[in-house]
């Protein structure tokens, strides 16, 4: 069996063959210019001296603490760590409230982010306000970190809209449910940033399952070809519904990036400090003109794929229990306590804020107004389209919007 990601819980940090092996692999000189590679950027691995992290691709904030490496990854300040912790707690509280709302029949579906808070919140806190996020559909922690009111997620999962929030206000694109379909638009958005000459970066969130989509590979091709300012942040949570990562890939996902000419590394996705550090370092490389970067964050989808899923049919309780011991919130809490960076009041306050957000989620969910079908005709086209007016008139003649209400009442 060749190298494969085997997702067993372990007390050891997950490791993978170095994604940055042979960083400067020479391209044989060719007399034909067509065979020459495009402008080559320096691989990330070449930017740093060899370190313990370089071998595994894991970024450890401990490296920085040792102070041995001038070019070592940055480390989140105490204030950033506290902000990350608070957003992780808020995300989990909201996520659990939404899961409960689905169980009570108030949401049609929910995709829990449980267990992935460090990967999501840790990475998102490394972004600047000017950067843009293209999420998948489980990035609740990213949205919380960007300042998006998470209640705006609920209409999508209640069946009241198809996911519309003001993307500009927090620079977060809409959720995308077609797995991986946001990848190419994200690259295009980054191409636009480059054309604008803006010092901005697009951060694309993908899952392990999405990396099997052809469009994900195409996005890597395009990003490399255009040297677009984009970070591919892959949360490898072990499972794509029932399909383990080893079915998706026979190599570490981080190694995929290298094949496309994109410097890549693997990070412990349950270590918020490491996720922040790796993301901050990758964004710095992109801002320095080193082209697109890729991070694979190893984490675990502690809950079901969605509330419609039953993980007990395809994975063991022992596996889940093992990962529960590596809970990212408990881990950061312990680190903050050990480093003396947060006191009991801080933790109590975060928990209280989480409880308040959960209550707000519940109130917000119940207050969602059902949409009207006749309104849907107004947002399909920005310009006049003759058929829309005719069909809207037909719908009104059919008794819309009350027709469905009568139907449901029967």
């Amino acid at each position, binding site marked *: 069996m060749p190298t494969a990601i085997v997702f067993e819980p372990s007390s050891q940090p997950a490791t993978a063959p170095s994604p940055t092996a042979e960083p400067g692999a020479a391209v044989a000189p060719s007399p034909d210019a067509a065979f020459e590679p495009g402008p080559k950027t320096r691989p990330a691995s070449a930017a740093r001296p060899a370190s313990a992290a370089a071998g595994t691709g894991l970024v450890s904030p401990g490296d920085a603490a040792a102070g041995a490496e001038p070019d070592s990854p940055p480390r989140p300040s105490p204030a950033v760590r506290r902000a990350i912790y608070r957003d992780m707690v808020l995300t989990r509280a909201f996520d659990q409230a939404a899961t409960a709302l689905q169980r009570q029949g108030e949401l049609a579906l929910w995709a829990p982010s449980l267990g992935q808070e460090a990967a999501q919140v840790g990475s998102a806190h490394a972004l600047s306000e000017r950067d843009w996020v293209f999420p998948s559909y489980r990035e609740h922690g990213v949205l919380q970190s960007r300042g998006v009111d998470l209640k705006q997620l609920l209409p999508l999962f209640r069946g009241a*809209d*198809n*996911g*519309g929030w*003001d*993307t500009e206000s927090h620079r977060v*694109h*809409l959720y*995308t449910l*077609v797995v991986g*379909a946001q*990848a*190419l*638009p*994200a*690259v*295009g*958005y*980054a*191409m*636009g*940033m480059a*054309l*604008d000459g803006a010092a901005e970066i*697009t951060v694309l969130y993908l899952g392990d399952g999405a990396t099997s989509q*052809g*469009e994900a590979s*195409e*996005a890597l*091709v*395009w990003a490399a*070809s255009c040297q677009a300012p984009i970070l591919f942040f892959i949360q490898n949570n072990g499972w794509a519904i029932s399909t383990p990562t080893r079915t998706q890939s026979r190599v570490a996902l981080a190694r995929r990036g290298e094949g496309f000419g994109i410097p890549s590394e693997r990070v412990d996705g349950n270590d918020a400090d490491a996720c922040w550090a790796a993301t901050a370092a990758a964004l710095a490389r992109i801002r320095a003109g080193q082209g697109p970067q890729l991070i694979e964050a190893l984490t675990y989808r502690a809950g079901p794929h969605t509330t419609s899923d039953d993980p007990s049919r395809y994975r063991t309780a022992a596996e889940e229990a093992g990962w529960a011991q590596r809970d990212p919130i408990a881990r950061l809490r312990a680190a903050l306590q050990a480093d003396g960076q947060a006191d009991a009041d801080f933790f109590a306050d975060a928990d209280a804020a989480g409880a308040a957000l959960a209550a707000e989620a519940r109130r917000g969910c119940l207050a969602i107004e059902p949409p009207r079908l006749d309104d*849907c005709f*107004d*947002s*399909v*086209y*920005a*310009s*006049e*389209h*003759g*058929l*829309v007016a*005719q069909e809207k008139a037909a719908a009104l003649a059919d008794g819309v919007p009350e027709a469905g209400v009568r139907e449901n009442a029967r």
Partner: protein
Amino acid sequence: MSVAVVAAEENAAGAPPAPKPALGLGAAVNQALATALAADEKVLVMGEDVGVLGGVFRVTAGLRERFGADRVRDTPLGEAGIVGTAIGLALRGYRPVCEIQFDGFVFPAFSQITTQLAKLRARSGGRLNLPVTIRIPYGGRIGAVEHHSESPEALFAHTAGLRVVSPSNPQDAHDMTLAAIACPDPVIIFEPKGLYWSKGQVETGPEGTAPDPAVLNRARVALAAGPGRQPGQAGGTGLDVETGQQVTLAAYGPSLPQALEAAEQLAAQGIAAEVLDLRAISPIDFDAVEESVGRTGRLVVVHEAPVYFGAGAEIAARITERCFFLLEAPVLRVGGYHLPYPPALIERDYLPGPARIVAAVRRALDF
């Protein structure tokens, strides 16, 4: 030529007439792209081989030299990438014009077009505009190998959120290109590649002026002379209603010349045919079709795409619903058969030409 093409709804007002060069349909698109690129720095042209080569049909020739490689972009070979990145560029405020090299190669982009491009505006509650133009050379009669002669327009017209148009002449090709780029919604232009070199006079207008996007909604009436009919008369009472020897031929893109040729042959037989250039397949101008059928009582729809679930099926259904009692015969359709596009040596048997159109008219008249 006894056929007069009347642009009934065209804007007659405006600036003093510019010289009208005779351009091929492809050259007319090139002219429009140059106009749009010059007028708005947010306009981009992107696709496989559109830059240095100028496109496999040379439709984008000279644009890269004039506007630079950043704005006329040779892309990697991937249609999903072309459309997918165009979506992102549009979200960023650009107005990308994508070229899909051939009709049969659009399918790798089908998911991006139907699941993202078409839906994002509606999903965002109308907040997001996607001004993306996708140009697709399509249709047969060029003797090409497989996947190079197809007519997949119905697949896109079926999807809410897209506009689908197809010009039949250089003037429309020019105007539709500018109108599509100016349109805040995604527009797919199916360009009849077999007509790329068919020349016609093109009013290009002063640089920087774009036609009203409403041009994308309009059908154009082309009238064939028949008994009691003077060429060039739009509407009126010229048709000899008493004899019942009249018919509407509705067509678009590469089928328009075929319908006009059939109308010529019918005129020689004393049958007056009114030819409607639909121009748009989403939305179809049903009002224009109904109005014409009100005069003729018979309708034959012509397109290269397979008849089954094609645009003609929708037109037949709607017209039957809207003006059943005006019809003297069932609406008939002439188009491709339910086959994968056949080898080029027999494509003329597959494509709707004047003989099949005339035969269909005869069936309608004999009903």
